[in-house]
């Protein structure tokens, strides 16, 4: 392991984690209605397996996994399927979703043990159980976890890296998970290590969470080689490539997967979710969400049933203040601003941030003055200034040559730009345009 526990470049946005960093996780009551989009994960959407009028218990499947690159979707509350139709998705699009009217007086007791006990399962059975439980990466990207548990055979995996950096400002769900449930995190790591057949695991945690580092260190099981590595506090420390660099000192080659350097990265929340799934026998139907921001009256870390509408979630936190200006699903650096508060919490929802007016970006954009701050911010050493100039004149092929594909849309360049140029937005659009160009030719 290298001594370096950070990376060059990056930015320091205002953290604002103090709003919820010391607020213990609480459970939110069931809302009157839940909405479950069939597309909540990277890969193929789930295939619908209920119809209008069906009665579902908590944990019943409403959508089947459609192939290996897919996971099922489960009902997060007992009730009746009211509707299957297009519904606003927190990513800004519309998605097919199952709407369930929650039984007002149901005990919400799930069927017993829908996921088998972990002890004694073979590797294949664990991978299957994780897929059946609908577990995805809880760090935001919602990549199916079982796929990462079955890496291509040609690569030898030597280290499991658990991502507890939580570098997005405002968010504290991983922080609270580590501080309150360190044993669960370690049990999840045990499952991951055994399944991957690795001897070594490293949990990377930013230094601004000393209580989490302390709790994790105290709870390390005697028989496992687990290290807790404090990381430099910097955005985007939790980006997969930055984290791997901080832990192993190696750069993942451009265009390659982390497994090509022998590591698998899992979010700390995903590790805890795996543990919970095997402990309780319940599939992934709820998750920990940080609901916060200066535009919210009572910020909190909540256990939220997947499918809870943002409207209900914000109401549970006593609603928005009069100067609330923008509701973001995810962190304020990479999250999506919401146009419709009927959009539900999905498996990938790390947090809901309500920004007050004074925190939002100004509208006025000035010309690029080539100050070079974006070059000093870009964690993967791109030239956002040049890429921005090219994007505005639609020179997408030249952007590809300038390594547009390596951009992970972390937003560091847009954050520092004194001219307020929406660089990462330009790059997102350019990536899509480049894809269309390639498809056309």
């Amino acid at each position, binding site marked *: 392991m290298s001594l370096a526990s950070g990376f060059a470049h990056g930015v320091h*946005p205002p953290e604002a984690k103090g709003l919820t960093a010391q607020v213990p996780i609480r459970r939110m009551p069931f809302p009157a209605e839940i909405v479950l989009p069939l597309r909540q994960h990277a890969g193929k959407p789930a295939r619908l397996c209920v119809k209008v009028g069906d009665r579902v218990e908590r944990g019943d499947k409403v959508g089947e996994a459609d192939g290996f690159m897919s996971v099922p979707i489960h009902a997060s509350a007992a009730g009746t399927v009211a509707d299957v139709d297009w519904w606003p998705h927190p990513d800004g699009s519309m998605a097919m979703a199952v709407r369930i009217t929650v039984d007002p007086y149901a005990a919400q007791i799930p069927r017993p043990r829908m996921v088998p006990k972990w002890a004694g399962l073979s590797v294949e059975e664990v991978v299957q159980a994780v897929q059946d439980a609908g577990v995805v990466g809880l760090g935001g990207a919602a990549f199916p976890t079982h796929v990462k548990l079955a890496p291509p055979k040609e690569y030898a995996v030597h280290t499991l890296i658990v991502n507890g950096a939580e570098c997005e*400002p405002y968010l504290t769900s991983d922080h609270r998970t580590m501080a309150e449930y360190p044993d669960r995190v370690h049990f999840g790591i045990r499952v991951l290590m055994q399944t991957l057949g690795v001897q070594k695991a490293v949990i990377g945690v930013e230094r601004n969470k000393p209580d989490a580092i302390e709790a994790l260190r105290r709870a390390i099981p005697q028989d496992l080689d687990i290290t807790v590595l404090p990381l430099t506090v910097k955005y985007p420390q939790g980006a997969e*490539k930055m984290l791997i660099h901080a832990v192993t000192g190696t*750069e*993942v*080659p*451009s*265009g*390659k997967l982390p497994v090509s350097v022998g590591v698998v990265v899992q979010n700390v929340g995903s590790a805890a979710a795996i543990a919970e799934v095997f402990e309780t026998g319940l599939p992934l139907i709820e998750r920990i969400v940080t609901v916060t921001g200066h*535009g919210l009256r009572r910020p909190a870390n909540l256990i939220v049933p997947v499918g809870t509408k943002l409207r209900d979630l914000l109401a549970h936190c006593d*609603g*928005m*203040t009069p100067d*609330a*200006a*923008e*509701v*973001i699903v995810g962190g*304020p*650096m990479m*999250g999506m*601003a919401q*146009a419709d508060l009927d959009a539900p919490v999905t498996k990938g929802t790390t947090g809901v941030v309500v*920004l007050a007016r004074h*925190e*939002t*970006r*100004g509208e006025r954009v*000035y*010309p*690029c*003055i*080539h*100050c*070079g701050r974006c*070059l000093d911010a870009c*964690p*993967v*050493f*791109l*030239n956002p*200034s*040049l890429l921005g100039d090219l994007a505005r004149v639609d020179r997408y092929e*030249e952007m590809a*040559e300038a*390594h547009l594909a*390596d951009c992970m*849309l972390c*937003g*560091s360049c*847009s*954050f*520092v*730009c*004194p*001219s*307020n140029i*929406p660089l*990462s*937005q330009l790059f997102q659009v350019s990536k899509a345009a480049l894809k269309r160009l390639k498809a056309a030719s």
Partner: protein
Amino acid sequence: MTAPRLIVTASPHLKDRDSTPRIMWNVVASLVPVIAVAGFYFGISALLVVAATTLGALGTQRLFGGRDSVGDGSAVITGLLLGLCLPAGMPLWMAALGGVAGIGLGKLVFGGLGQNVFNPALIGRAFLQAAFPVAITTWPAAGQGFWTLRGDTFALPFLQASTDALTEATPLGLLKFEQKLTPLGDLIFGTTGGSLGETGALVILLGGAYLAWRGYLNWRIPVSVMLSTAILATVMHGVDARYPDALFMLFSGGLMLGAVYMATDMVTSPVTNSGRWVFGAGIGVLLVVIRLWGGLPEGVMYAILLMNAMVPFINRLTQPRVFGTHLRVGA
């Protein structure tokens, strides 16, 4: 629940507090002491010249760049810097014309803020140098009364000079044409003839330090300019003692103003840190070459303008290595 009006924007939703106008106005603020020192040495004439160039620059920006483009402060910087590299006795109409040329030919023809290749203030000065070679090399002596006009300040366009001003040669002029060295103390404290901004080396350095501390100026450029100047000057001084030493080179002429305020113009300097070293070093070498062997006594302006032209090439050759690759980004 009350329903506030929500906005929807692309990520990231947070933004660093620094803005382009804030950077520009900070540069303007740091120039105020420099102008005050010029006023101290050259009196009311200095302030009038700076006012004239700034008005010329702002008027042109407002007229051709649109109402919106004045507030960002960049045209004010151009005006102030141009004023600071002119002699105090410059007729005001010439100074104002320089401001017009600087913004018009140096910036707006390229497409406005951020698009220009050359430093607009230096374009303005180069224009004046070509158009009025006598007026721009008539250096009033420092240290007369504050209200004394140093030359044909209020001359009408294209009329012959009417007053005889008390003039003095610049240290570099003395060196080049009379082989006389000015004492270092005079250079540092500005009690010499020269342009307005050639007299306040210490205040300029302080202003630069403030800007560098705030992150509004990249320290690599002035440092590399001064380092390369000092090294080359020391070598030449060692070869032939008739050449001036490094300290004389650093504190004479417009080097400080050029290195701190003009070479560091973000628009016309490289975007990469390694490129900034190359850029600054190139300026230092060119200005020593011009000063020692060129036809002109002073070479800061042409050194910076020449290196401005090299910026696209420097940027292309100094692209950072992209994470996870060993290739360089093709610019």
